[in-house]
């Protein structure tokens, strides 16, 4: 067995949740029943909110490792499955995603994502397919 195995589906889910716990965007790369999703989202955001700035951006929750970063009022959350994933790389990906959204919406804010949900989804789908990163070129 590998010491550091490589996962087929690095990203399991990608969420954008605001500080009040309202989900602004949710993209799951493996099927999860809807009740479980809402529970998962609220628990994760609670954990993220309770951590201060100085703490790690990585949290373990229910078998997933969750990597998050806060941009203004929105938390960008990515869940990965195995412990072997490159967390720093995922952080970079989150940053690339934010920069892309920024470029598209011209100084993006939470409202932009809320009211243009489908566009945000399209952009995300251009960058990630089935949990694998396709394109990071802005």
């Amino acid at each position, binding site marked *: 067995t590998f010491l550091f195995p490589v996962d087929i589906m690095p990203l399991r889910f990608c969420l954008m949740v605001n500080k009040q716990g309202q989900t602004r965007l949710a993209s799951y790369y493996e099927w999860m029943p809807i009740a479980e999703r809402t529970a998962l989202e609220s628990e994760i955001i609670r954990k993220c909110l309770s951590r201060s700035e100085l703490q790690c951006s990585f949290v373990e929750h229910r078998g997933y490792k969750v990597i998050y970063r806060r941009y203004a009022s929105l938390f960008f959350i990515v869940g990965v499955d195995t412990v072997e994933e490159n967390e720093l790389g995922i952080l970079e990906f989150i940053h690339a995603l934010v920069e892309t959204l920024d470029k598209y919406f011209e100084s993006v804010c939470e409202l932009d994502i809320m009211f243009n949900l489908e566009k945000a989804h399209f952009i995300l789908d251009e960058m990630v397919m089935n949990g694998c990163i396709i394109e990071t*070129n802005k």
Partner: protein
Amino acid sequence: MSIKLRDLIRSVRSCKTAAEERSVISRESAMIRTAIREEQEQFRHRNVAKLLFMHMLGYPTHFGQLECLKLIASPHFPEKRIGYLGLMLLLSEEADVLMLATNSLKNDLGHGNQFIVGLALCTIGNLATPDMSRDLATEVDKHLRSGSPYIRKKAALAMARCLTKCPDMVEDFVDRVVSLLKDRSHGVLVTAVQLMSCICEIDPAIGRQAFVRLVPSLVRLLRNLLSMGYSPEHDVSGISDPFLQVHLLRLLRVLGEGNEEASEQMNDILAQVATNTETAKNAGNAILYECVQTIMSVESEEGLRVLAINILGRFLLNRDNNIRYVALNTLGKVVKQDAAAVQRHRNTIVECLKDPDVSIRTRALDLIFKLVTPENVEALTAELLNYLVVAQGENRSDICTRALAVVDGFSPSERWRVDTLITLLTIAGKDCDDRVRASAIVYIAGSADDVKAYAVHKLVKAMRDDDGSQEGLLVVAVWCIGEFGDMLLSQCDAPSGVTYQALEPMSVIDEVEKVIKRVTCPSTVKQRSLTCFAKLTDRFSSAPPAVLDRLREKVRKYESSMNLEMQIRACEYSELMRDGRGALARMPVVDPKVTARRQARGGSVIDVGAVSSAAMPQKSGPGAVADVQGGGDLLDLLDLGGGGAPAPAQQVAPAAQQQMPQNPTQSSDADLLSDIFAAPMPGAAPIQPVAPVVGGGGGGG
């Protein structure tokens, strides 16, 4: 009237309460359902968009699935797009509706417009079932050779998904992948590399065989990336396309593992990446992290490994928590391979235990447990116990169990071991599980006399200081006081310079009494205190009669207790105290290896021969150690040749490394005596578990 998506969002936002939101959504839901029934075409895409929004909020939306299918079939691009998006978000692989989409997908795959083809590929990439994959694989394959890089990269990942779902198709498509590597577009390269990693994961044999000869080209790609000048489209904080670099490193890792030749080809580039990458930014660190993982996995040379561990050491000292976390994580995995190198960083790791961040603390704890060696065990355990004082609830029992493993494996001396266990119980008595308590007792009982005395004195003091919350501590303390109470009557000198004064028998009884008088005292402690008092009548046999009377009185008090267990014990102990015939004498020491073996066998077999015969003052013959089953149903009594009756007192021996069960009903005195007068059973042979002795008769006193 159908409202726009924006308006819906706005109205949901303006809801003040959850109930209001629910009513808005259900109203809109009803309208959409009506619209679907009436087959209104013009607002279909708007309705589906609204459904997506509601789905995200968590409301049921399955009635919209067929709508998505209709949208997909529409010739208009925006409608198609929403349809596919809806499909991807609302449906899962298991949905039967998905099959109906296959035909549309096939048509769209052959479409002239590359964006439509892109949409279809995207959907296949995210949703394909095994059947769909089989159908559509050849189509996807054609697009791998398409003229547009946009299509190629999507096709690559769609192919990855198809192959994951149908592993048997891998051989057909493997060669195609190779040509993708020559592509200029980074998007295609990234996906191609991921596709290759995927294939290696699905079918390692084929994957490696096909791709291993590509290692030099991969290395060359990586080298180009490193030496490439500034390129605006791929640059991330000064580093060119870190994502591609990371994926390339990952693929190299998969190909190089176990393969000497491939690893050799990678050595140079790995060293180059490790030394030249800038560490000021996160992107650089991400690459370094991946590089370190790769170095440790492939058959790299010694120098390279040392380099990798040094990088990890540098990470550990970084102020950024993320980096430290990553370093601790990785060190935990490589410690098996290269323990010496990791030991060098031990002090930093111990410092991490005190970090305010809980993720870092957990990782540091893991790592420390892996780092324990006979040389550093004392220092490390001291740190661990310090940490235990502040550790949070969920971790505590885990830490206790692991600390026990450490103590089992690495104790430098008996005294240290006993000491550590007592401290452990004092800090986390109520969190540690029964194995810790049992081991504590076994070790104390098995140690030399002076250590025993020291242990008992220390336990009394700890019990006195405790406020009644540490159940484990109380249980062990009470048991030891009962068993070794005579040692309390003499002074004891501890090595740390502390001298424990000799205690009067009365004050010993007082201590125990204080504990059980507390309202919060758990019943397990009270039960054991009865045992303790009973045994003390034997240990304090040379004390003035007032003491013995008091003890008897204490036990008698419970003869009419409401608690059945207490009542039984009290009655039986009263009888035993009257005429115990050595039943209350010192218990023999349990050999932990024997009990472990016994546990492994799963039965409650008494192996008298194996009981280590420490020089215990016995009135007659070796005592019996009853091993009580977890369920507590079977009672194992070993009858002794003449003399000592099998003491019920021994059944409560926590030496059984199982849970402390409610003790099974013990036979009354009458039955015991009848057993003794029966033919004595051979003492040396292992005895099979016998049926409960409580046959009728005393019925548990």
